């Protein structure tokens, strides 16, 4: 006998943090995460009665987050916002008089997000779930409904791209420091 679908409020309470973090990991900007999180849960509210339990609830929720984040990244307003390396360097110079820790931390985050945005989405998802969410390969495979071998393959490719981009960033920063001297 099939159990009744979980109540919406209970799902919300249990998975709000997970949905929020998932959207951020999937490339949604901090300023837009509140809106997207609410959209995810409105979709959950709409479809929860049809959830048949054939997958983990967490997997189902993550799938909704992926689709929302994918539409979000394709939207015109997000495409029109361009974070350029020039803008980042300008920001760095402007912040030279400010608290170095805060400015450096912010710059690092911008650069990190920029690098991650260059990863193909399947690789990005595996990379952030493994490296930042500390999920195991098995858990990631279950979440994304793929094989562990695929998880490891995507992780390897993502790491190669990540490292290549970090080296490129290091070269740019080094050139910038030489100019400043």
């Amino acid at each position, binding site marked *: 006998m099939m159990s009744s679908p979980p109540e919406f409020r209970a799902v919300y309470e249990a998975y709000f943090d997970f949905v929020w973090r998932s959207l951020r990991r999937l490339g949604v900007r901090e300023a837009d995460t509140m809106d997207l999180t609410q959209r995810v849960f409105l979709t959950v509210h709409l479809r929860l009665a049809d959830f048949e339990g054939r997958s983990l609830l967490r997997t189902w929720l993550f799938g909704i987050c992926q689709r929302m984040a994918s539409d979000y990244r394709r939207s015109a307003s997000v495409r*029109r916002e361009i974070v350029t390396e020039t803008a980042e360097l300008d920001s760095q110079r402007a912040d030279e008089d400010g608290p170095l820790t805060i400015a450096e931390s912010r710059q690092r985050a911008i650069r990190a997000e920029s690098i991650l945005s260059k990863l193909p989405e399947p690789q990005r998802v595996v990379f952030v779930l493994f490296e930042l969410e500390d999920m195991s390969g098995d858990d990631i495979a279950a979440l994304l409904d793929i094989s562990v071998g695929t998880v490891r393959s995507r992780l390897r490719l993502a790491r190669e791209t990540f490292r290549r981009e970090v080296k490129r960033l290091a070269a740019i920063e080094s050139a910038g420091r030489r100019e400043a001297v």
Partner: protein
Amino acid sequence: MTDPERLLSAAGGGDELERELLSSIRDVSPPYRAKSQAWDGIAGHLAAAAVVGAAGAHVAMSAPAGAAVKEAATVATPVVSGLLRAFTTKVVLGTVVAGSTVAAGASWVHHQQRPTVSTSVSDRKVVPAATHNPTAVLAPVNPPAVDVPCGSTLDAPPCPKVADAPSNRAAKQDPGQARLLAIESEMLTDARAQLRSGDPRGALAVLERLQVRSPKPILGQEREVLTIQALSALGQNETAKRRAKAFVAAYPNSPHTTQLRHIAEDP
């Protein structure tokens, strides 16, 4: 075969810059009160959807739905309850609309207050939208037809016997209305995102397209609020003030009124 070491771990083989970069984005937890604020918005949106469904007059409430509504009502926070009461005192509610009123992808959410997250735009370069004058065609929205107090006349629908709280059971409703609501919600979300990212012209362009697509909008109040906010952001203060005053006069008990009062009363 076991998992590799993580780049952030000592044995992960990540160099200093790689670890710095990953550490800088490691914490993406929601800020304090984000959970309760998000819930307020969700409840508000579902209440608005309930108004739409009732106005469509094609809603049925099943017994399980009624039970779910009661449960939802009892667990609603005092803020949410207050929001729902304030928003629905003057609207028709023959029945409560369940989740299917919000069509897949419906996305506009009513905010009681701005979320605590903030973003710096100083390090972003925003490419402005195509230039045109979007303000000329955005006429004020006529008050929607649903503002009829329940039980006020013999023809008005009776007031609901259960709280107008969200339900998580599907209900029958006009599919055309649901689709229109989904489209409006999507476009309002897009407009709001543009406004937040510092592009009020882009927001007005979206609202203009919404007006063309939906001359008699379901979410008319929401559209008008965003229009007023975008006009204010553009510095068109006289127009924004005039429309804000008209809105407050037309909808004194609307939850949006709080947002607009400072524009309406600005000297």
